[in-house]
């Protein structure tokens, strides 16, 4: 199993009362709540944490993209991945991912990812996402064209990476007379592509398609949901006539390892609950603008609204498998059990979440890397 240290880089210094009062920390939480001096310290602390991940033996360090939110301070994962490319030597760097439909020109993504791949000597793992619903409000990009733009942007980027330029690309949304990428990516034919998702049939069908066979990552979901979608990926692959490899599946989950089960829960409790009940929260209209998902999925979410939009305690989250927390033994046992059920080849652990401070984050990373990771890697 490949282990990824994944970071959201939240604005941990948030005035939580302000976040709660606003109902969400996305889209319209006034940016007077962001203090650039605190931001300076946080960015450098978080980058240090990811760099420390290399020293601790993680296989990959991962960053992602979110806009105008305290949930994550990486409107451009390109910036953080670039910094990591120069400060690390061995570890792979995953951008999970770039939100293609939010970019006005997909070739900028092709160029920037190729740059990082070349600078890092082929250590980039590329991720493509559509961006979450809130970001369609933020950028005023039409969500009903989200899938179309995503697919077409992907096609353009892949062609730009793999076909000799210059050539013309005539899509419906993007028309480019001279596709002629400088630099071309370091890896042949291109960096591995991972697709993080909250789970949708369309995304799974597309990622599992024999032309793609992209690694599918189920992000921050109850373990039953993770199981359902990873199984759906395998079934879809079988339907296409091939068996999905374990390396095509991944799970991204917040983790806290303590000295004992009891101390782990005690140390993580408020920080996890802040993450789940303040940073993640947003109203339905913001989460799922029209066209972002199928109307069937939207109706299912409307039905499950009370459950999805209410608060969750750490105890409930552990029970649901939304959070993996405990002593090194407990966490090892939990992941080994989940792996036996699902056989995911990639585990993305978020060792910092919500307001978890630097000392606890480092202790968590160390306990995970020393007490858990060595037993998971051989799986």
């Amino acid at each position, binding site marked *: 199993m490949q282990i990824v240290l994944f970071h959201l880089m939240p604005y941990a210094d948030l005035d939580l009362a302000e976040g709660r009062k606003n109902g969400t920390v996305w*889209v319209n939480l006034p940016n007077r709540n962001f203090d650039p001096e605190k931001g300076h310290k946080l960015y450098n602390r978080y980058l240090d944490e990811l760099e420390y991940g290399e020293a601790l033996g993680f296989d990959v360090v991962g960053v992602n993209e979110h806009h105008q939110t305290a949930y994550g301070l990486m409107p451009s994962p390109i910036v953080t991945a670039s910094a990591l490319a120069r400060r690390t030597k061995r570890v792979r760097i995953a951008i999970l991912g770039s939100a293609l439909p939010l970019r006005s020109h997909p070739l900028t993504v092709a160029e920037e990812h190729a740059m990082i791949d070349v600078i890092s000597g082929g250590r980039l793992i590329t991720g493509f996402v559509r961006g979450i619903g809130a970001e*369609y*409000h933020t950028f*005023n*990009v*039409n*969500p*009903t*064209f989200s899938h179309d733009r995503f697919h077409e942007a992907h096609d353009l980027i892949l062609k730009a990476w793999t076909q000799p330029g210059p050539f013309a690309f005539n899509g419906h949304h993007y028309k480019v007379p001279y596709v002629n990428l400088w630099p071309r990516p370091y890896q042949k034919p291109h960096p591995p592509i991972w697709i993080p998702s909250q789970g949708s049939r369309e995304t799974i069908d597309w990622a599992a398609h024999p032309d793609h066979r992209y690694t599918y990552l189920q992000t921050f979901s109850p373990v039953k949901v993770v199981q359902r979608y990873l199984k759906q990926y395998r079934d879809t692959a079988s339907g296409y006539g091939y068996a999905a490899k374990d390396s095509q599946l991944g799970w991204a989950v917040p983790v806290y390892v303590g000295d004992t089960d009891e101390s782990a829960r005690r140390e993580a409790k408020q920080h996890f609950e802040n993450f789940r009940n303040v940073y993640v929260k947003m*109203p339905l*209209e*913001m989460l799922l*603008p*029209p*066209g972002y998902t199928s*109307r069937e999925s*939207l*109706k299912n979410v*409307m039905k499950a609204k009370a459950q999805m939009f209410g608060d969750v305690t750490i105890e409930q989250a552990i029970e649901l498998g939304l959070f993996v927390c405990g002593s090194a033994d407990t966490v090892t046992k939990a992941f080994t059990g989940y792996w036996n059920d699902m056989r995911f080849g990639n585990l993305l652990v978020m060792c910092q979440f919500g307001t978890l401070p630097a000392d606890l984050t480092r202790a968590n990373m160390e306990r995970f890397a020393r007490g858990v990771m060595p037993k998971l890697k051989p799986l």
Partner: protein
Amino acid sequence: MPFTDHHLELDRCKTHYRRAGKGTPLVFLHGASGAPVVLPFMEKLATRYDVIVPDHPGYGLSDEPEWLENIHDVAYFYLDFLAALRLDKACIIGSSMGGWIAMEMAVRNTSRIGSLVLVSPAGHFAEGVQPADIFLLPQEEMVRKLFHDQRFAEQRLAMPETPEGIDLGLKNRHTTARLAWEPRLHDPFLPKWLHRIDVPTSIVWGAQDHILPAATAHELKRLIPQAELNIFESCGHLPQVEQMEKFCDVVFRFVR
């Protein structure tokens, strides 16, 4: 005179419309939430006119054609619709999004259009005026913002939700996003061509419109100088519902 249901296959889109009455043809173009039921103002207008109430492509009981990508598609579709029904000197009444469609039709071709009644139309943008964010407002707040007199909102909120109603609501909302998400509820190129509207035009607006504030009405009047402007006091975004009698009187006076 009861409304009857009709279907017309046009431009690869099965289109549903209701029709009642005799006289000058009057086509009502609905707004973002569609025209799921026959409303009192429609019945009243049908006592004097041949009233036709279509579901736009992508709305209500009409198909969702693949070609539907922007408001211009809808405008061309309705010019074909007027021709297919052989309507002549039709009055086009458009509410909100429907008013926007009416203007997009009229700048292209008025050969079958006799007059326009633009009821708090979307489609243009007045500097410094912020329309409501109809995609971010929670459902209940949205309904409340539609009306000045909250009794109308209470009535609408008290209507029981049915599975069919929810499906239609999601369908309408999807198409509204497709046509009007960006640029939000307007066409930045439309004002350049509004001078091409060469038929009598009446603008109706509620002074307390909390969806598209009435300040927009004055900007529209500047762009279509020959239009008459009727601002209804104590009225929200749907004058045809909230002040039905007064609204019908404007139409009766305006459309002979």
